[in-house]
């Protein structure tokens, strides 16, 4: 179990990064021009409330002290209040996080479902027309703008065919599946080219490994060699790749949520930017950054669990 010792000390190594993240979010709100109290409270705000906010954020103190107030508030789970929704930011986030997580998982599952068979087909038929076809999709697909893709899918599948709703989230698991199909498909189409390119590359490397040649020389059937020897070894790079792309994926989700009016964190963030609801913007940014760090940590754990050779 020595290999899993990093699970204990990795979080400690992440402490400086977490500090950095909090510092960036702090500086972000600090750099807004104007009186911070007015901005944080909106146009209205009684003298009493203003005094309370000043005390809570230590706004009369030097900047460095203000940062410690900020950290103290974070540690207490105090993200402030939203000007627009008139509720604590934390409760706002807790109601909005589920659609985003649902959409992310749904999109990733769909992307893997698309990418794996295509990459396998391409690598087996290397250099032939099927390979060329998959490769042109994975090159052209790199530049697919998610927001435009979403709109094209709406035109075809919602407006023309009427198979899926244009927007929303629905109630209950199966309605979520139905409502989020097109948004998740958009994410999958935009993500799969990256997955295909890398999975195909690692399959090709794997196909030329010594243990594959050894398996062939023992006369094992090609199909068995492919699935038992080649494919299994190519899964770990794909999982790592999902970890590397999680930040990019979250960015895509923000846009896709906006296109399909999904009530998630992304549309909350975009709406709050236009409403100048800075504490919400700050909190969502922080949450997304923590999500990236957590995902990369989980990817490390999973790849160590899957491959005994990996030592972190």
């Amino acid at each position, binding site marked *: 179990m020595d290999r899993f010792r990093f699970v204990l000390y990795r979080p400690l190594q992440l402490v*400086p*990064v977490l500090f*950095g*993240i909090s*510092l*960036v979010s702090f500086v*972000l*709100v600090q*750099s*807004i021009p104007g009186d911070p109290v007015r901005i944080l409270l909106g146009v209205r705000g009684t003298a009493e409330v203003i005094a309370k906010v000043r005390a809570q954020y230590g706004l009369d103190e030097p900047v460095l002290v203000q940062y410690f107030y900020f950290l103290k508030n974070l540690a207490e789970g105090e993200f402030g209040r939203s000007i627009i929704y008139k509720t604590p930011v934390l409760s706002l986030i807790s109601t909005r996080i589920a659609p985003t997580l649902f959409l992310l998982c749904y999109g990733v599952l769909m992307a893997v479902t698309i990418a794996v068979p295509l990459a396998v087909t391409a690598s*087996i*038929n*290397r*250099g*032939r027309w099927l390979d060329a076809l998959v490769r042109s999709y994975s*090159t*052209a697909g*790199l*530049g*697919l*703008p*998610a*927001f*435009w*893709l979403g*709109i*094209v899918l709406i*035109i075809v599948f919602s*407006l023309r065919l009427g198979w899926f709703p244009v927007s929303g989230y629905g109630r209950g698991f199966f309605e979520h599946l139905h409502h989020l199909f097109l948004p998740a498909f958009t994410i999958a189409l935009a993500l799969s080219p990256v997955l295909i390119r890398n999975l195909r*590359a690692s399959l*090709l*490397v794997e*196909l*030329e490994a010594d243990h594959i040649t050894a398996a062939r020389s023992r006369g094992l*059937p*090609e*199909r068995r060699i*492919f699935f038992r020897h080649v494919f299994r070894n190519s899964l770990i790079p794909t999982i790592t790749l999902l970890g590397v792309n*999680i*930040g*990019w*994926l*979250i*960015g*895509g989700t*923000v*846009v896709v949520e*906006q296109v399909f009016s999904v009530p998630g964190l992304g549309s909350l963030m*975009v709406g709050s*930017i*236009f409403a*100048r609801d800075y504490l919400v*913007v*700050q909190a*969502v*940014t922080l949450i*997304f*950054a923590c999500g*990236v*760090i957590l995902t990369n940590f989980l990817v490390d754990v999973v790849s160590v669990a899957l491959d005994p050779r990996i030592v972190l």
Partner: protein
Amino acid sequence: MSAITPSPVTLGLGGRLGASKSLLWGGGLTLIWILLALTAPLVAPYDPTAQDLTATLRPPSLTHPLGTDNFGRDVLSRIIWGTRLDLAMGLLALVTPFVAGCLIGLISGYFGGIVDILLMRLLDVTMSFPFFVLVIAIISVLGPGLASFFIAVALVAWVSYARLVRSRVLVLKHADFVLAARSLGYGHLRVMLRHILPNAVLPAIVFAMSDVVITILLGSSLSYLGMGVQPPTPEWGVMIAEGQNFLATAWWICFFPGLAIVFVALGFSLLADGLAERFGTVE
């Protein structure tokens, strides 16, 4: 299933011919777009902002090859003029982060020590934020517009270049020719800029080609959300946002600008692939 034949380990198209093919197609496509951007006033059949309220929401026809929008503006002309802005966003926005990233990577890798540790922590922190989220958070502070977009990209996009250059510099600084240059008495600055940088910059240049794709997508997404270029300026993301209200009746307003993005991106992606294969910097 017998088609799986052993061959030398290459990740790309395999062979020099294939490599030059992506380079050729990518270069050609990119050149066409750049020419289109430069000659926009000559090529565009109509004024991109001229409204014609007698010809609104017309489907593609001979007079308006890609149709007209809700103000009767010619979609083709707006796409051609949009080429200028979208290419400018993709190419110009990367100049600052490219230069800054290369210099930071150079300094960090060459001197090491506390400078390296601090810069690399800054890099770790920047990379923990989802790229898009950090950019829109910065724009929320600076206010929407093209200038904010350039600043936000500069603040975020340098990390990739710094990382690529630094990892090359770490190897190169122990190379014989660098030691030779040092022992000839050349100063650090001269060795860094004249001897190490030219040898370390290639992966960064190759990456810049695919970064152009990312930045064009970013810029048009921001304009689509209303945080980048503002209407009525002809820009592809803006056009798609404006056309979204007329999806049911006039699909062409949204459809063609998006296609333009796909083909510009394709040009640069092929260019990136071609260069990566040509110079053997496949990641």
